[in-house]
């Protein structure tokens, strides 16, 4: 029973429902209290102990239905069940059970065999056949085969042999169904993890369109974590400067003796962000995710403005404010994309139109490969930006050895960057964003 239970829990974890050890114990106690006879009650009770948000409840119901589904054993035709009992027992228990059509016993035998061979370890599609065979062997299918053979040897074997052969086919189907079910429960978890891990490490430029949806979900997940992490830290306010006035007022009741102290609440310093993104070629896909990150985190950041450029530079904040969907990115691409990149021109545009808005609280994130098609890079403008802002972070999708080769102007821009990082996977992006929030924390 406990084994089945742990399998169920690992299936739940695969469906992104976090289950702690303490909750496992609670759930087992709950199950013991409720008993296993009433399915609906068991479901309700376990849902309370294990799934703790409305979304998790939906996922839980799904897994519960899948995991505790043994209907397949009730589909068997009744005529088979009432098939005549010829010579039994000498093919082993399994043959007897098959002939008697004892579904409950068969289901139990299958469960036991499954536990014995460890079906819960199944991870990949290709292991299906292997595990089906193992379960059948464990149940003693060889005995049944031998019996069928023996019957066949006696010339046709008559209706009993035929019935047994059919029953064997049926059993095979059942076991394979069962194994597939296990695969979809247990395998989903691992393959999901593998895929996520791969996506997080793969270069954003090489990403397939079909992976985008999944990527967006991963970004959301990371952002949820970052928000939880950093908003908690912001709540620390029990130190700092003493607020005499409030302290006095609060302690009137104590005859003016200062028992309880009040602290001046520190002003939160949420960074103001200007993101300037190159949207040419491979940089565009990184830009897309960087912007998604920034806008998902809007509650931790003060003010986000985004700019896109290739040949020239425009502000694109309003496109991303409401929806971060591909539509916004595509619209931006239509406006400024597909042009030879000109860093000099774009920096000039920024200086003319937006430099006045840069103040001591602004963090500028510049995303680009600094390949300017041999035009004048106008590094002095970047210097001006650097002097005005709090921090200038440059993210370059190219690996460091390529910086400054060919038409890359990275070396010329480098002195004016407070931080220069290679950035072309989700993991890189996460690190950058985390760093951004952390520094804001320290400054506060």
């Amino acid at each position, binding site marked *: 029973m406990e084994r089945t239970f742990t399998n169920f829990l690992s299936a739940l974890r695969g469906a992104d429902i*976090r289950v*702690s050890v*303490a*909750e496992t114990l*609670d759930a087992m*106690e*709950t199950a013991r*209290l*409720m008993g296993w006879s009433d399915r*609906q*009650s068991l479901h*309700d*009770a376990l*849902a*309370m*102990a294990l*799934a*703790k*948000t*409305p979304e998790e*409840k939906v996922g839980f119901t799904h897994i519960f239905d899948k995991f505790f589904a043994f209907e397949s054993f009730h589909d068997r035709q009744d005529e088979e069940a009432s098939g005549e009992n010829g010579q039994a027992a000498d093919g082993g228990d399994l043959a007897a059970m098959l002939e008697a059509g004892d579904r409950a016993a068969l289901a139990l035998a299958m469960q036991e065999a499954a536990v014995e061979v460890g079906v819960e370890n199944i991870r990949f599609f290709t292991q299906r056949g292997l595990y089906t065979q193992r379960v059948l062997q464990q149940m003693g299918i060889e005995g049944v085969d031998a019996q069928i053979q023996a019957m066949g040897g006696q010339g046709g074997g008559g209706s009993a042999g035929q019935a047994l052969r059919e029953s064997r086919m049926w059993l095979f189907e059942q076991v394979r169904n069962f194994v597939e079910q296990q695969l979809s429960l247990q395998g989903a978890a691992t393959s999901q993890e593998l895929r996520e891990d791969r996506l997080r490490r793969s270069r954003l430029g090489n990403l397939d369109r079909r992976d985008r949806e999944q990527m967006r979900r991963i970004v959301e997940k990371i952002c949820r974590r970052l928000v*939880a992490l950093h908003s*908690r830290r912001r*709540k620390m306010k029990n130190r700092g400067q003493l607020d005499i006035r409030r302290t006095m007022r609060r302690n009137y*009741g*104590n*005859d003016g*003796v200062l*028992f*309880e102290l009040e602290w001046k609440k520190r002003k939160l310093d949420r960074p103001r962000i200007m993101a300037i993104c190159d949207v040419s070629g491979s940089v565009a896909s990184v830009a897309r995710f960087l912007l998604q990150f920034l806008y998902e985190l809007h509650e931790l950041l003060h003010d986000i403005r985004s700019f896109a450029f290739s040949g020239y530079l425009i502000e694109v904040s309003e496109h991303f404010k409401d929806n971060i969907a591909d539509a916004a990115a595509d619209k931006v691409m239509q406006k400024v994309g597909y042009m030879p990149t000109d860093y000099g021109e774009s920096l000039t545009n920024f200086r003319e139109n937006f430099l006045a808005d840069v103040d001591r609280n602004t963090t500028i994130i510049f995303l680009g490969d600094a390949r300017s098609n041999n035009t004048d890079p106008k590094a002095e403008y970047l210097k001006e930006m650097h002097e005005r802002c709090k921090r200038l972070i440059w993210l370059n999708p190219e690996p460091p050895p390529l910086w400054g080769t060919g038409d890359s102007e990275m070396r010329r821009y480098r002195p004016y960057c407070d931080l220069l990082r290679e950035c072309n996977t989700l993991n890189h992006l996460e690190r950058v964003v985390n760093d951004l929030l952390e520094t804001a924390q320290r400054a506060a």
Partner: protein
Amino acid sequence: MTPEQLEKLESIERVREGYAELGYICSRQIATAIYIAGHLGKPVLVEGPAGVGKTELANTTAAYLDLPLIRLQCYEGLDESKALYEWRYAKQLLYTQILRDKLGEVLGEAQGLKESMDRLHAHADVFFSERFLAPRPLLKALREPGGAVLLIDEVDKSDHEFEAFLLEILSEFQVSIPELGTIKAARRPVVFLTSNNTREMSDALKRRCLHLYVPFPDARLEREIIQARIPEIPQDLKYQLVAFVQQVRELDLKKHPSVSESIDWARVLLLLHADELEADMVRETLNVFLKFEEDIQSVDAELYAITRQAKKVDGVRA
């Protein structure tokens, strides 16, 4: 739990019936939650939209199990001194003033500082004793000799620190007071925490609780609830009213009408001697269950359609 209380929690059905007698109609999930919570002694975190009877659940539980209800309303800035205990500083100060003479007697013949100190110590910590302790809801609940129902209302409104502070109470049912030591629950209280989901509760808190999500009730359950609360309501009106409210909840509104508001509405209609829904009367009483001007306007625009539909549902029943 006393044997009588355990008997009252003997099965899920029994819980449902018992609550129904007290005028609280609960769904199967709710009854299951109470059943498990009673037997395992775990706190229940109740989430759901406003006005579905989360607080009422705790009230009814207290009435059903015949336990005192101790309520702690959470808000931003709530801290230990308001939730758990506080020393009565004023009383302490007053007593030191009054007892000044007595102090002289105690220390009367003592020679030197050391001896005086020893004498004082011989009298124990009189000023930090139970007498000067002002218990707040949490401590009260723990010290209630027969057990209690503890309702920690709108826990999502409290700060993160307070949430962390709750953890010891929720898992061990004990609190540590530096001057007095650890106080353990005389008898485990039945704990309900309610949350309107204005913020996500921490995993640590969720891990220690059973989680019950109470959605808006379906039409049948809502009819039962109204029947239980207002037994004299005409059948037609009840069916139509519930059908109407259910439809309004489907609309895109700022705030959906809660169960308590539909009960209020039923009371109002009853006062107006309505036997069934009339569009005009509905229009005049919309403000009973819709609290935003925009919401009233958007429902008003579709008033006739919804009323007709509500009556049709009623017709199907007949």
